[in-house]
Structures are given as C-alpha cells and as structure tokens.
C-alpha cells in the first residue's frame, strides 16, 4: 500500500518535471543568439530587450578572438550577433564569414561618435557597428609596489618576481614583448618575433600566472600586484580595490575596438539589426557601459554616465594621450608562427 503511494508520487513528480521541460522548450517567441566576450554586457540590458521586443535571447560567451573565429569558421553554431575586435573583423570580412549590415534599419547609428566610424578594419562600416573601445595597459597595486610603473620593461624587473600576471593570449602577450622592444605589434618580421619570444622566455620565471578573465579576481584580492589588462576591466577592478593604478606604458600600446557584426549563417537577421540598433540607444548604451566599465563610443550615452565614470581618465582618456598606440592588423598566416612561438615559450625549461 505504502509502496503504491510512493510510486504514484514519483510518477507525479516525473510528470511535472517533463511538462516543465517541454514547456521550457516550446517558447514560441523569436530567438536571438548572441555570442559575446565573457563579462561584457549588463545582463539587465538583455532582459529589457527581451521584454520590449517580446523575444528570447540565448547568450553565450567566448574568451579570445581566436576562440570566436574557430567557432564561427566551423559553422553550425548560427549566432545572430557576435562581438569580434578590429583585426578579427578584418579577417572575417576577407574570409566572407560575416554579412553586410543594412544601416537604414539602424537609426541610432547617428549616435556613434565620428571618431569610431570608418576605421581601417571596416572602411565604410558596411559590416560592423562599434560596441566598445579601449586600450591595454598595466594595472598595479600602489601599496604592494614600491615605485610607480611606467613602461612595459618594468614587467621584466626581477624585483617584481612572482607578482606579475600576464594574459593567457598569444597575440596580446606577444604584443607586450614586441612593444617592450620598440617594434610594431603587427610586425611580420620573424627575427623581431624571435626576439620577442626570447624576452618572454626570460620573463617567464618572474610571472605568477598567465590568466584570462581570472586576472580580475587575482589583482582585486591582492594575490598579485601587477597585471596586464584591458582598460575597461581596469575600471571595474579599480571600483573594487582603490589601491589600483592603471597606466599606459611609455613604449606605446594597443588601441582596440570591438564591434557588433552579423555572421553569414545568422538565423534571425532582422532581429539582429533590431538588437544592434537597441544597443546604440543612449539610455541602453549608458546602462551597459556603467555596468561593465568599458568605454562607449556614443557621446550621448557618456553624458548619461555617473560623474565618477564620465571623468575617469582610464575609460575616457583624452585622445591626445593615445597617439602612441597601434591597432592590431589581421596576422592571417602568421598565426602559425605565433602558435609555434607560444609553444616554445612554454616548453622551454
């Protein structure tokens, strides 16, 4: 008797469970698939979009441009909006992986600052609409470091052994070494790349770890004193730990732009346009920029930011400070060299 009841209850629970799963799947609202960097959007913004347009957003994240590239090139994932950086957009255009954007459907495009339009990677903004921009620099904890850091070469100072965190990204970390040597970060000269490799091998014993997004936690919690980070992450980190300082190294650094693009095999192109337009709306762009800390290319949105962030020189530097910067170019076939160099750095004893 007792057993029968347990059986019935189990069946009932099973029924409830399966009904809820099925009803979860049969959401008949249109779906928008987004593929973005980790920690790179205010989730609230996605909720607002879902409500206003009565759609469902499926949101996935990646860690590097190269991850994104492999996934898109492989096909079968059918994302509607993705967020590559400058050089990756250049490559995706060349390899015919993304489609032209119909700018007549994007009324808010006029909100974007002229400075961020028509850049080299996409000369007429036929394929990409700016999302965020920033720099790469050194962040350090002024309580744990006995002198101000000013240049990439400081990351090779033995005094800071075990305190330095580098990025676990071939391209970005090689760029640091190249800039330290005063070479272009877009160099195609193998000898220069070899020299950069030797620098990184020399530096390896001093490095605490090579990290991705975890670098934020490590620096905030003072696990390590010095890190290489993107400007927007620096803003977010400095909010959490007031002892942190962000500097643009003397040797020059990387200036980058991330943009929204629509892949060739997108399922819902119409909705993708609506989403891009939505993200350019000043109130939405401001809300988003306030949350993630990265720099918005939309002046009307910047006006809406908190004073603290608006006047933050890390997020919104004077453009005169940025003269000594370089934008990444598509390395195309050089990627194999990067890979070889990277492996050599980590297999050297």
């Amino acid at each position: 008797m007792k057993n029968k009841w347990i059986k019935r209850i189990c069946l009932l629970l099973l029924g409830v469970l399966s009904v809820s799963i099925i009803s979860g799947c049969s959401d008949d609202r249109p779906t928008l698939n987004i593929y973005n960097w980790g920690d790179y959007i205010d989730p609230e913004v996605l909720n607002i979009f879902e409500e206003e347009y009565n759609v469902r957003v499926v949101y996935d994240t990646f860690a590097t441009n190269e991850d994104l590239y492999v996934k898109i090139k492989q096909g079968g994932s059918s994302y509607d909006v993705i967020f590559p950086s400058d050089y990756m957009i250049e490559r995706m255009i060349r390899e015919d992986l993304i489609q032209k954007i119909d700018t007549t459907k994007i009324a808010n495009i006029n909100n974007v600052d002229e400075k961020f339009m028509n850049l080299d990677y996409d000369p007429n903004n036929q394929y990409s609409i700016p999302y965020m921009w920033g720099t790469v620099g050194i962040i350090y904890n002024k309580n744990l470091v006995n002198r101000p850091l000013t240049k990439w070469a400081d990351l090779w100072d033995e005094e800071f052994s075990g305190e330095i965190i580098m990025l676990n990204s071939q391209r970005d970390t090689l760029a640091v070494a190249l800039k330290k040597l005063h070479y272009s970060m877009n160099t195609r000269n193998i000898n220069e790349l070899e020299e950069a490799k030797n620098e990184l091998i020399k530096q390896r014993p001093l490095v605490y770890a090579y990290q991705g997004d975890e670098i934020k936690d490590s620096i905030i919690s003072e696990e390590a004193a010095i890190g290489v980070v993107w400007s927007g992450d620096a803003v977010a980190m400095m909010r959490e730990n007031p002892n942190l300082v962000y500097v643009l190294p003397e040797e020059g650094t990387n200036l980058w732009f991330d943009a929204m693009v629509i892949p060739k095999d997108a399922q819902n192109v119409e909705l993708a346009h609506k989403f891009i337009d939505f993200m350019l709306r000043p109130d939405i762009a401001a809300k988003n920029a306030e949350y993630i800390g990265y720099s918005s290319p939309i002046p009307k949105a910047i006006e809406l930011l908190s004073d603290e962030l608006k006047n933050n020189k890390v997020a919104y530097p004077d453009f005169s400070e940025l003269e000594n910067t370089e934008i990444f170019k598509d390395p195309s076939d050089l990627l194999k060299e990067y890979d070889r160099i990277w492996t050599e750095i980590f297999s050297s004893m």
Partner: protein
Amino acid sequence: MKLSKHGYFYLIWMAIFIAIPLFMVAYLAFTSGDSQSISLANFSLENFKRFFTPMYLEVLKKSIQLAFISTIICFLLGYPVAYIISKAKLKNRNILILLFVIPMWMNFLLRTYAWLTLLGKNGIINLLITKLGFQPLDLLYNDTAVLLGMVYNFLPFMVLPIFSVLTKMDNSLIEASWDLGANKLKTFLKVIFPLSLPGVLSGVTMVFIPAVSTFVISSLLGGNKTYLIGNLIEQQFRYTGDWHFGSAMSIILMVFILISMALTSKFDKDKEGDVSGLW
C-alpha cells in the same frame, strides 16, 4: 554471433559515439590542409613529423612524468586507505566509503577552483602559516600544485577498485596463511597484496589516463605556466584552429595510453598466472 535488441542498440551507440569520432580524428591526423574544408585535405605525415621535434617531445615527457608521479602518489596514499576501509566493520565501511565518494558528487571544476582559495598567496593555508609566524609559501601556480590537483582529483579512482578487490577477497586464504605460520607482514606481502593486484592495476590505469591527458588542472593550478600535452591539444582545437595537428597529437597520446595499458595488462596476466600457480 546473435545480438539481442539491446545489443544492437549498444552497437549503434558505439559506432556513432566511439568509432566514427575516432575515425575522424585518425583521418584528420593523417591529412593536412585547411582544417575547415575536410574534402580538400591531402594525405600527409607532416603533423607527426612536426610533433617529433624536441619542443613537443619535451611537453610529452613532462606530461608523462607528472602523470607517472601522481599515479605513484595515488597508489601510496590510496592502498592503505582502501585497506583500512576494507578492514572496517561492515556498517562503518559503508559510511567510510560514502564519505570518500561524496566529494566526487561535486563538479570537478568547482573542486579544483576550491584549491585556488586554499593555496593562493593570501589563501587559507598561507594565512595559517603567517599567523603561526612563518614566511608565506609559494603554493600555487607551479608543478607541485598541478601534482596536488591530479592526486586530489584522481585518488578515488585508485581507492575504489583496490577497495572492491580487497572486500571480495576470500578470507579463508588469509586464515590459511596464518595457519601455515606466516606472520601478518608475510601474509600481506605473499597473499593479500598479490591477490589485490588486479585492483591496483585498474586503479593505476584509471589514474594515469586522466592525469596524462588533463588540461584543466594544469591550466587552473599551474597558472598556464606548465604546458602539458592536453593543453597543447586544446590550443590547437580552440585557439589556432589546426585540427590536423591537434588530432595527430591526440593519436600519439592514445598510442602512449594503449602501450601503458598493454604493459599493465601483461603484468596482470603474469601475476594471475602466479596466483593460479598457488593451487
């Protein structure tokens, strides 16, 4: 051979999820060209030639070394644990083995992440050490941390098979040994341990294989400073997009695992021969 309905289902399952992927990996390994357009690929041994250069062999050597050491440590720690638990009273035994297994119900990544907070420079262990008046230690992001992660995560795979062999062991054999005048040590060395070898060997394979191919542990606890073969393979698939080279490395790793399994099973047979020779 006639297969039941379930048998056919299993055969199809194996074909789809084991045979076909394996075939694809082998195909990619022996071809080169653009990874993304498979039809354009040509037969080539270039991937293997590329691997057998000092740089990659160094990584392979290091992976095998670390996996080997962690297997030995797992054995040295795991055997006594399995032995003690198997000798406990039936009621306690179940509780003990449950306590041992419960942590495995938690996600593997979470458990590994937990070590970050323990081993970090401002982590709990260093906090205790400094409280006691000692200098903080460098515990995280080195080979020792990677080894620790391997031992911690894979220890149950060593304990469980040994435990199961020890509990099933015929007690009358041990009693016979005592009756014949062997002391405890001799009984252990001559009877219990040889009889438990099948468990030890399956434990060894079950620890060695995941340890030699891991990339998560070396990435999280090694701070990406230590590259193991698993990291190299991951890098080819996720980052560089050279699936041919990544597949070739997977094949090479598989060959090494097969060799180690063949060695252990050969050893196993020899020993089994010995055991039956007892009779």
